């Protein structure tokens, strides 16, 4: 039996869920947080007078990179 405990895909790092002390490293010198893995999206944009409006799937993440080695 499959029991779904949440209706939302939770934010996560590359190797685990969001918990204090968790590593955000995904590659050497690169940190990644998948803040919104899956979302319903609503878009309403005007581009040079042409409307671009739609509903669909959305995603959000946050990335940082540094050439110094993380401690």
């Amino acid at each position, binding site marked *: 039996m499959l029991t779904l405990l949440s209706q939302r895909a939770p934010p996560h790092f590359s190797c685990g869920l969001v918990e204090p002390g*968790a590593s955000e490293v995904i590659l050497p010198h690169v940190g990644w947080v998948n803040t919104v893995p899956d979302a319903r*999206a609503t878009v309403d944009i*005007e581009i040079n007078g042409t409307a671009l409006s739609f509903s*669909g799937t959305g995603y959000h993440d946050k990335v940082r990179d540094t050439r110094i080695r993380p401690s």
Partner: protein
Amino acid sequence: MNMHSSLSSISLGLLASAALVPAITVSQVKYPIIEDGPSSAQFTYPGYGLDGPRVDHVNSTVFDWWYFDMISDNVAEGDLSSVVAVFHDGTSGGFQTLLDSPNKIPMTLGGTFPNGTIWRTYSFVSEAVVVADETHSQGSWGDIGHWAGDVETGHWAASFDLLETHGVRGTFRLEQVG
């Protein structure tokens, strides 16, 4: 060229969470974002400010960004509508594919129309403001782009106004699902 002297007259600032001071939880801290000298980045989650800044300032070797994308529900029916929005806290020095503008930080918007035609805008601002607390975050890229969201409610929204310079303005919303 001395980076400090070339940038010293640029008014760039960033309001951020105290994510780089893990022992303290406050709503905002202000510091300049483009400076000469070393910058440090955070790679361990402190337990708050999930979507907050993770570099203490921007020099020529670091970047931090907030990325959003959206695609139509009806791709299988031929509707190729899509949008990609990226709020960059970095310069071409830290992220080489960015256009060369070492004194300002970019906001990029692009995507495809329903028929697949590609559109894209590339704008620079001289100041970005990001505020983050335990669950909420929001950012403003000058007067042209804003986003806000909350990891607890799963609601996110963004707006941008480049009508005068690029003929583009609009909004998008994300409601987190599973």
